[in-house]
């Protein structure tokens, strides 16, 4: 195991975060704070509590994931796409590193950043609405798992994309809408019959429900299903990445 390589990639990737600190951390935090002002404080005060949780607190887990999911995907995808675009990838390809080490470095850094963001957003939310986390350790573990899974997904996206447009399109056009419709702002029980069934096809629903369960112990779906689904996605993404490195797809001619 080339530990020095993992550390080098990890440090360089996090270095990118510090260099672009404002864009990396400040802007997601700012937009989340705006959500809390609008939905938490302003509108939330006129909404009734859902399953005994005030509306302002109810939306916290979903809002955290809204940022964490899109940031994990876009950070990891950008991290690997940029060297491909500039040609710097030559160094990675000529280095004595295995797929596992490369992934550990890139995905690890992207996930770390997402987790930090998640925690910052959680703390920011606490300034606007009072809430207690029922299972804090599980919530943190789940946050790490989700961050890693989506960073891995982003890594695949960054390998597949052949232009900046494709890089933007998935987080913007797929992840973000699915999270909005995935029960960030409502419980899927509030949806009329058919739409509830449709919502169950949205994988993000399970993530938000699972994360909310870790926060407040309430969920319309079994938390274990959420966990199993997240693990399933992690395994699937890992398999795809290993295949990419084995075949050299989009990496080696």
């Amino acid at each position, binding site marked *: 195991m080339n530990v*020095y390589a993992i550390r080098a990639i990890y*440090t*360089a990737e996090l*270095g990118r975060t510090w260099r672009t600190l404002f864009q990396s951390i400040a802007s997601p935090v700012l937009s989340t704070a705006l959500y809390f002002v609008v939905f938490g404080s302003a509108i939330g005060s006129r909404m009734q509590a859902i399953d005994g949780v005030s509306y302002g607190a109810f939306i916290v887990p979903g809002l955290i994931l809204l940022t964490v999911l899109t940031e994990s995907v876009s950070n990891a995808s950008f991290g690997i796409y940029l060297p491909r675009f500039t*040609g710097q990838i*030559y*160094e990675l390809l*000529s*280095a004595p590193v295995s797929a596992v080490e490369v992934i550990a470095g890139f995905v690890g850094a992207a996930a770390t950043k997402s987790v930090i963001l998640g925690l910052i957003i959680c703390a920011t939310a606490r300034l606007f609405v009072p809430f207690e986390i029922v299972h804090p350790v599980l919530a943190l573990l789940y946050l790490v798992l989700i961050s890693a899974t989506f960073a891995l997904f982003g890594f695949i996206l960054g390998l597949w994309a052949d232009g900046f447009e494709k890089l933007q399109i998935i987080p913007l056009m797929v992840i973000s809408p699915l999270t909005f419709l995935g029960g960030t702002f409502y419980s899927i029980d509030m949806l009329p019959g058919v739409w509830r069934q449709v919502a169950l096809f949205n994988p993000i629903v399970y993530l938000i429900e699972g994360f909310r369960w870790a926060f407040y112990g309430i969920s319309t779906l079994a938390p274990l299903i959420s966990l199993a689904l997240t693990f399933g996605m992690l395994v699937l993404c890992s398999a795809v990445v290993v295949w990419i490195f084995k075949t050299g797809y989009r990496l080696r*001619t």
Partner: protein
Amino acid sequence: MTTILAIERLNKTYDNGFVALKGVDLSISSGEIFALLGPNGAGKTTLIGIVCGLVRASSGKVTVDGNDIAIDYRKARQTIGLVPQELSTNQFETVMDALRFSRGLFGKAPDPGHLERILRDLSLWDKKDERIGALSGGMKRRVLIGKALAHEPRILFLDEPTAGVDVELRRDMWEMVRRLREQGVTIILTTHYIEEAEDMADRIGVIDQGELMLVEEKRALMRRLGQVHVTIGLTQKLDAPPENLSGAKLDLSPDGMTLSFTQKGQDCDAALAALLKTLVTEGIEFRSVNSERSSLEDIFIDLVGRRR
């Protein structure tokens, strides 16, 4: 000399059907400077790419210091440093960070002293904290060399290292190549400047259309394929070229004032000396002697041109 790089029956056909390499065999000895010459698209970069892990070979075998690049890729790649043709660097990183990254990526423990030596050798020490984006093109190329040397490789690949580099930097760079060779580093380079290959290399390989046409020690190559053209200016007009002068075929210019001959292959200097001696004993006076040696470039153009 031990073999540090062995290439056997290497073939590469790209997905679009382009055949870049056709059964290349090549063996590089430890500590030598090997220059790979060839026109654009000849397969130089593909060959380097396969050895360094950027390109997958279609068939064939490559071993670096006894390690198969496909099986023992870690050991093989740790031995190699690559300076690519394109100036691809992270513009936002500092010079020092870039070298630190490279060293780590190749699995070496941090060694600030070593990195400092490299940067000083490359005259980059005072730029170590600058962002690469702020450096000139020549400086960026030095950074790439520094990155390639950061993990103390035993083989250094330089793919067109002096393309677009000014004269001074080019001289510095060759100075560094010589120093590296003294430290025992094997250097394999491609270049368009054939004089450089002539000046620097121990051995020359000529590649064209994916085939390695020849690999030879530079001196032997120059001796075998080189030729000397001598012109002798006379003080008095001659009516006919003197005959049987040391066996060389002499040509007389129309005005009868200049003798010339071309000597191929064997030792040209001895032939010239013998001729001059004969001229003196024959009483033919001359006022100038001019000899032109064919360069590697002439040899190269002749070799490649013959196939067109």
